[in-house]
């Protein structure tokens, strides 16, 4: 990327004369600054391509550039593509442009709209370094409230952390051959689940209607005599599956196994989403879409780490209901919660969130690894609170128990 952008930028002096006198953006180097800005945005996960940079250059030489008050919204409309971009843009814009352009306005540590640069950043306000520094700062912020922000963007963070900590606990729990075997089994199971679901839909939708318009159209060539008939059938859509995986300390022994299972599911279902929660909730499907099994699982295992502590199922479900549910849930969605039900939050909240979730989706399946234990009964408070809203409460301590679920899931 940089080569092409820079060539555009270095070609800029030719554009220089088009910028008229009093503009705040100096003609010389404006293009280069813009390229730097585009790079900063890209580093922060914006999808900025050459077309956008080119258009931004056009904006920069237009009357809009005369006032920062209009330049900012113009560039924002151009560079942003999602709501999370939109929310972060102001800060990045201020940090990049105002950092150098209006050095006299310093507001330290503040969170105001005007400028949020720290003294250190101002000191190194030279473009590339600044871009780096900014990246650091904003990345940290993103990690802070990853629940909301990291959606769709977890990929990059995950990749870099994977390199840093490539030897994870996972390796010690399960040996590589076993890993491969488990994944293959889980993927096969997920695939067969999906296949059944689809077939079932087809059988049920046997009642077909005549598509009059299409029939007439098709028979125009016969002079309007109806010979070929066209039928209408409801489109078959596979079930959508959302997996919420508990990765708290109490689930430690099973996390590695379920990470594999979840990856198999996301791999096989076209419409599947996966979330991992402990005290917070993280959207992990983007990292799981990696075709490289080992890498994907490592990423997820890493996200599932950082944990050990308690579980706040209620909080995590609240986050899910509030931020993700509308997008990932529709009437064909089955929710699969994998957890032991040990909740350190208030049971009342868990019950309330379960109730909300239940109303939105088709079925809730709760897999509890502890059921496999002898003499287990769901005594945990959280489990008690959640049970009334669960359609299927099943053991999941090994692959056989998961395979036993298949007939039920096929019926959903």
């Amino acid at each position: 990327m940089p080569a092409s952008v820079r060539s555009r930028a270095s070609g800029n002096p030719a554009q220089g004369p088009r910028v008229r006198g009093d503009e705040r953006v100096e003609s010389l180097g404006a293009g280069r600054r813009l390229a730097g800005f585009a790079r900063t945005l890209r580093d922060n996960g914006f999808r900025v391509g050459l077309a956008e940079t080119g258009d931004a250059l056009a904006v920069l030489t237009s009357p809009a550039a005369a006032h920062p008050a209009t330049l900012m919204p113009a560039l924002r409309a151009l560079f942003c593509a999602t709501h999370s971009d939109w929310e972060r843009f102001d800060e990045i814009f201020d940090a990049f442009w105002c950092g150098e352009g209006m050095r006299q306005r310093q507001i330290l540590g503040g969170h105001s709209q005007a400028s949020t640069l720290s003294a250190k950043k101002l000191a190194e306000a030279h473009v590339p370094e600044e871009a780096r520094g900014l990246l650091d700062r904003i990345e940290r912020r993103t990690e802070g409230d990853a629940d909301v922000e990291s959606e769709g963007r977890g990929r990059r963070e995950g990749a870099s952390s994977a390199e840093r900590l490539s030897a994870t606990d996972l390796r010690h729990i399960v040996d590589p051959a076993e890993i491969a075997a488990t994944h293959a089994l889980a993927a096969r199971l997920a695939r067969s689940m999906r296949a059944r679901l689809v077939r079932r839909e087809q059988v049920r939708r046997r009642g077909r209607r005549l598509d009059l318009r299409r029939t007439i159209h098709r028979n125009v060539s016969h002079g309007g005599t109806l010979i070929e008939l066209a039928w209408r059938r409801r489109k078959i859509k596979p079930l959508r599956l959302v997996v919420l995986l508990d990765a708290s300390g109490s689930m430690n022994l099973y996390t590695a196994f379920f990470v594999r299972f979840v990856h198999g599911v996301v791999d096989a279902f076209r419409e599947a989403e996966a979330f991992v929660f402990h005290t917070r909730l993280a959207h992990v499907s983007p990292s799981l879409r990696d075709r490289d099994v080992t890498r994907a699982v490592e990423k997820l295992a890493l996200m599932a780490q950082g944990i050990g502590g308690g579980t706040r199922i209620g909080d995590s479900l609240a986050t899910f209901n509030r931020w993700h549910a509308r997008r990932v849930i529709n009437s064909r969605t089955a929710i699969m919660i994998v957890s032991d039900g040990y909740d350190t939050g208030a049971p009342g909240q868990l019950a309330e969130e379960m109730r909300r979730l239940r109303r939105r989706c088709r079925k809730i399946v709760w897999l509890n690894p502890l059921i496999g234990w002898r003499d287990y009964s769901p005594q945990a408070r959280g489990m008690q609170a959640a049970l009334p809203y669960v359609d299927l409460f099943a053991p999941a301590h090994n692959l056989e128990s998961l395979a036993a679920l298949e007939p039920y899931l096929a019926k959903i």
Partner: protein
Amino acid sequence: MNLKREEIAEKLAAVGYVADHDIATALWLMDFLKRPLLLEGEAGVGKTEVGKALAAVHDTELIRLQCYEGLDQNAALYEWNYQRQLLAIKTREGVGENAETIEEHIFSEKYLLERPLLAAIRRNKPPVLLIDEVDRADEEFEAFLLELLSDFQVSIPELGTIKAVSIPRVVLTSNGTRELSDALRRRCLYHYVDFPEVDREAKIILTRTPGIETALALQIARMVAEVRKEDLRKMPGVAETLDWAATLAGLEIHDLRQEPETIYETMICLLKTHEDRSRLSREVSERLLSRVA
């Protein structure tokens, strides 16, 4: 002809659209860069209104395509008028024309039914094409839309390629029920429409509700802002605010503190689910009212 940003802002005000600060810039940029504008935001914040206002600003036609699941090219682009075609076949056969002439005749423009997308590229004066709730359409349709938005030409197998007479101004809206493709997002300018601030909402109430008092409009706007802060399933949108304002004006209420009971009862204009209704009990609504007044 491109308008300046300031002109757009003035005209928006003139047509009765109370614009937020940045939307004028976004609308100007649309013309400047010739890109479509994607509007996102909660339901009821007035995304569709932007399209309507834009049409009024440029004094041009608004062509609206409402998306839904299963929307296909026949409903969005063009369709042959089958009934007329059949009739034509019968009458011409009677006269004794040969099959080829008939075919050529029945697949001519005369028998083509324009649907919104085709209509939008065949106007002499560039219209505003409002593609509403694009997230409801299927992914296949989105891909097709992308193609149309980059080429502005349509190929009809029986008729050939139809090129755009004029390039329409395209506004897309999305409620975020489905993630849109990256390609579509990148093609578009982006604007996030938020709920209006209190002042702006009060202005909207004043322009849309004839004969309402300024003080009451401001109180209503403040109250709605408070209601939105509550944890609701369905946040009241601007349309709901206007309904409520009209109701209160109709009941000749001049001050929200005047009749708390009536206020509570009329809040069905704002709260559309049983859950929200029970969440905002009498006590809660009175607490909010005391904060507003």
